[in-house]
């Protein structure tokens, strides 16, 4: 799992809004950074990293919610949640496939049939979840989201001083 980028130079006495601006800006950047290659189901850690980045961004936005203009904040948060949900749908299947493959490998040959059939079902669902994910990881869409969040961040920064 990718470690979150450090937000250096924070101080406890800094205004809440200034901290919000710095943290949320970095977390939004991270989401975009981790979006490369997430549709490749042979490298599932990439999607996991992006999912974690989406969760961190969502959490940071929720912690600092009062620092942002309400209406635009809600729109941005809704988009982050939608991306996180779409990533989660794929991730759930990735994890289940691995768990069942591990379990199946421990079974005697004749007992594997049922588990193998469930793995096939999960692979189909994984593929469907991947198709549904495509629009959510579109570079342009993610860049628009990051830019929208940067505008929110600028407001938070201004309000704090």
């Amino acid at each position: 799992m990718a470690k979150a980028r450090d937000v250096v130079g924070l101080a406890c006495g800094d205004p809440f809004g200034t901290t919000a601006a710095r943290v949320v800006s970095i977390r939004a950047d991270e989401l975009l950074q981790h979006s490369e290659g997430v549709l490749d189901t042979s490298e599932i850690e990439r999607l996991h990293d992006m999912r974690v980045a989406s969760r961190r961004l969502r959490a940071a936005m929720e912690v600092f919610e009062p620092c942002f203009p309400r209406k635009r904040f809600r729109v941005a948060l809704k988009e982050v949640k939608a991306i996180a949900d779409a990533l989660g749908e794929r991730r759930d299947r990735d994890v289940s496939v691995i768990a069942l493959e591990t379990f199946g490998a421990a079974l005697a040959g004749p007992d594997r049939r049922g588990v193998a059939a469930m793995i096939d079902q999960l692979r189909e669902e994984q593929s469907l979840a991947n198709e549904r994910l495509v629009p959510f990881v579109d570079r342009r869409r993610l860049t628009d989201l990051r830019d929208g969040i940067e505008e929110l961040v600028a407001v938070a920064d201004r309000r704090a001083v």
Partner: protein
Amino acid sequence: MKARKVRKLDPAAPLDQNAAKIVRTRVDELRSLAPQALDPDATEAQHNMRIAAKRVRYVLEVTGFCFGAPAQTACRRARDLQDLLGEMHDCDVMLPRVQAEIERLRGEDARALLLQAADADDLDPGLVAHAPNRTVYRGLELLAVHLRARRALLFERFHHLWQAQVSKGTWAKLERAVDEQLSKTKEERKSPPNGNADPAPRETARAPSHSAS
């Protein structure tokens, strides 16, 4: 689970004052779920506790440096809870799915046997030897057994982990650190700097800067 609303947050006030209110609310939320979640069958309470632990973890990742060592420890312990409860949740999701699949196969086989019975007065027991899915059940039954046993094992670990956190004072220490900050804020409100005297610079503002991950 919807997060409890944290009231009176002020974007212009210092980070530590606001963070104290958020952390206090999130830790209260986590602790209030524990009594229910410690019932082995309370899957929903356990799921809610996982979400509460996640919220505690993420707020501490960003603001924990304002509350010292207890916050750093609590952040790690929240992650431990989140991971363990997450694995339990995975079992809770997979087990009914496996059971439903077994049930579906049973139904399919019963229909196949019925067709083979044709006009017979009764069903020939020997027909089960030809049930199309007869070799599929065992693996799935074993998977269901494995999930049930693993879930029970994870629950035991969760129970011990929570008891250990409580007995080591993980959450109580964090609450004390946060409450100190909240009292300090109250005091500062009660006795604002008088007259022309400049307010003393806040200790936290003078402290070296930190990084949040």
